[in-house]
């Protein structure tokens, strides 16, 4: 199965001139995603040190948060600024989100808890298809210090084991579509 399209597609960043200033359009990608630049200016540029000639596209780059080296695990999402190595003062920003992925089944929840996160990452808001099971409501997980954004399954009188389909897209266009099994004890 193909991966999420956000992981497959390199995101295009346009470079354009506005008066005396050169603008690198802001971009949003996932951790596994990549970017490339289209140079709409009449001069060469080198965002993140990658050469791009006028009216051409650059190589593709999987950006590193912070622009050079980042200690692992990388706290995400985060936005960082990069610079053109040919022209001092020219810069752009890239926001990097966690990959939008389902959490591995089987998941477990112990009563009295009734909520379990079934997918993480991506960029909210999500478009979530109902689970099709009356005992499972799927809701957006708010971003917090301890939890990445994602999707929670909220259970109401669930059986000991419940399986349902999780189908959702995030604001970057990434998709999750998988069977989820939760063991309730």
């Amino acid at each position, binding site marked *: *199965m*193909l*991966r*999420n*399209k956000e992981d*497959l*597609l*390199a995101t*295009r960043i346009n470079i354009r001139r506005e008066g005396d200033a050169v603008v690198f359009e802001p971009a949003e990608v996932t*951790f*596994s995603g*990549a970017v*490339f630049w*289209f140079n709409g200016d009449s001069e060469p540029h080198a965002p*993140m040190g*990658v050469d791009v*000639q006028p*009216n*051409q*596209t*650059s*190589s*593709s*780059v*999987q*950006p*590193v*948060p912070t622009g*050079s*080296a*980042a*200690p*692992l*695990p*990388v706290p995400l999402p985060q936005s960082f600024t990069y610079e053109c190595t040919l022209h001092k003062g020219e810069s752009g920003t890239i926001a990097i989100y966690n*990959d939008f*992925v*389902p*959490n*591995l089944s089987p998941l477990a929840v112990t009563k009295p808890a009734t909520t379990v996160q079934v997918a*993480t*990452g991506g960029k909210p808001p999500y*478009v979530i*298809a*109902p689970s*099709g*099971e009356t005992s499972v409501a799927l809701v957006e997980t708010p971003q917090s210090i301890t939890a990445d954004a994602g999707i929670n399954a909220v259970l109401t009188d669930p059986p000991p084991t419940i399986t349902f*389909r999780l*189908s*959702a*897209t995030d604001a970057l*266009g990434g*998709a*999750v*579509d*998988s*069977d989820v099994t939760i063991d309730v004890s």
Partner: protein
Amino acid sequence: MQERTILRRLLPIIPTVALLFAASMHAQTGSPPFVNPGEIPSHDGKLQAVMIVSDTDRVVPNVGKVHLRFFQGWDAKGWDGKQPAAKVPANAAVFSPGPTLRAKVGDKIEIMFLNTTDDANFPNTAAAEKCDQAFGTKKDANGNLVNVQIYPLADQYPNCFHASSTANLHFHGTHTTPDALGDNVLIEVMPVKDTTPQKWNAVFKKIFAMPAIPTKWEELPAEYRDEQERLLKAKGQQYWDVNAKQIALGQFPQYIAGAFPNTFILPNCATQDGCQYKALQSPGTHWYHAHKHGSTALHSLNGLAGAFIIEGAYDDFLKTFYHFGATYAPDFEKVIVFQQINPEQNLHRNIINFGAGKAGSATGPGPGQVLVNGLLAPTLTMRPGSVQLWRILNATPGSAFNGGGGGIISPSFFQTDGFTFEQTAKDGVQFSQKNFADQPFLSKQFPNGYNQPAGLMVAGGNRVDVLVKAPAAKGTYAFLSQGAKVLWVKVDGDANDMPLPDPKKASDWPVIPWYLTNLQQPPAADRPLPLSGPYPHYVSFGWDAESNRAVAAAPALPGGKGTAGFPPKWTIDDHQFAEFGPLIDQCMPLNGLQDWVLENHTTVMHSFHIHINPFQIVSVETPVQTTDAQGVPTVTYKTYTPAGDPIWQDVVSLPAGLAVPLTGSPTLTQGFAPGRVTIRHQFVDFTGTFVLHCHILGHEDRGMMQLVRIVPLDRYPTDCQAAIPHHH
């Protein structure tokens, strides 16, 4: 289950999510109906078409919108060059193969091919003579995430991924000229985003109306040549400089801007007597795809392929057998195009797995889901007992991952319980009566070369025609390839018991045409270069050890030569395509009849393909590790030789070689037994320069290709290395 299905159908969700319901686990309930790709037919002896490669957002099942290159065209018969035409496919926003082209033997092909791709939408697309670059991430020794270059690493131009904005059309399976306006894959049609068919219509009509198809650049109308020069110089003087040198040498130019006229004849004669050809175009299931060296795999993964059905006596027989009249009955003929879609080339993206344990973050895009006519596991409907002709084309890049990848259609597809299969053709060439009776693939006689169970397999580039008879019992049946349900067949409706030709009855299958009778043992005079070399002629598929390649899961090379490195450097006859400059690797005299032994000196699979002339399979030798009577490891060969007529093919899978431990050798710890296929082919009717290559397209792009030339006998071998086209 039923309740959940109904609920889902009622959900007001966005189209992308709706597509996700077609997931394989519930495929028959969410499965879309099977449809043949749209067609562009010939009329009155001419296939007149406009074919455009462009780019747009396309909805891909299970993924959503993906920005891809695509083929779209229309029937240009009677098109005035002004009015909007009915495009095929009508909706480019939904993924599908290119239009099916349908012609008859003897037809003239007249295709206006345009490249209007906006190369600003893709990284690494410029037609620069250098490798793509890609930067990824990795964990360094200090545990930090850092940026590193991940491509091209040790790949060297021109045997690397590059120049994907350019394209051309390869008419795979056609017997025609490889030069000039024919099946010429040595040209690169560069994109001109804003060009239109209207702009070129008048001059292309002039070209197509010329009494003789132009074979030289100078024979094309001045207005076409002048506009090409103007457009190319606007793109960069260097492109025209390359062209000017080639034109001065009497060659066709390499670079074309925006528009190219593909025109040629599909050879045919009413009888052999007086026929100007030694071989005719075989009627059957052929195909077309973009064939730019360095981008063939990526273009395949963008879906730049379609079927090319050429009708002839083979079809006449089937129509007569089933009492159809002049055309196939509706619902009898199914065109099944297998494709894999990925907007990005492999090796251009690091696979990130830092142990986060999240599904999806640890797996790369391969092996990749296999689509049927752009649909995920569609449902084809048959009436109980009915028979259909399935024309099957594997248009994936052919990646096999040692037999387990999705790029080959496995024998299980043709072993679905309840159905009866009769293979009628391979690679667009009908079976002889003997082979139709023997069914060498379905009966598991023919070794498939890949690590697959025995039976009929469809490797990348292969075509298979099968008559399929549905069971009497109604129901929905899953057709599997590589363990995945790739097609559903719903047997429903009123029974329609149709016969299958009786393989044992000679009158139930046509005699093979005169130009496809068995090639005889070649005479010694018809030898390729080097003239003094061993015969039969050996062509060796291999890989090189290179210490500067990043070694990861590197396969061991035979004979203690170390490891192949990763990614391997693919070679044929120990060198890559144009590795040492311009070179015709294989040169043959016109009408030469030769046996070639294709050896696989790697431990992975390869598929041999040569343009212009099909070949017959003389033998397949698969190495098998055994032990001798003393218990010492040794190798024997399992050899297939045809019980009847050698099968015609244009893509053949080469069994993997086998590394074997050696005992008693003072220097080597390992020996090697190559896989081996012997073919017989004759180089008739057309001189010119073309290619042979591995049809695992990533291998082709990265070096596993050779230039091939056929020269007139009186110019052999004098002209073999003369004026070699620039093609990178």
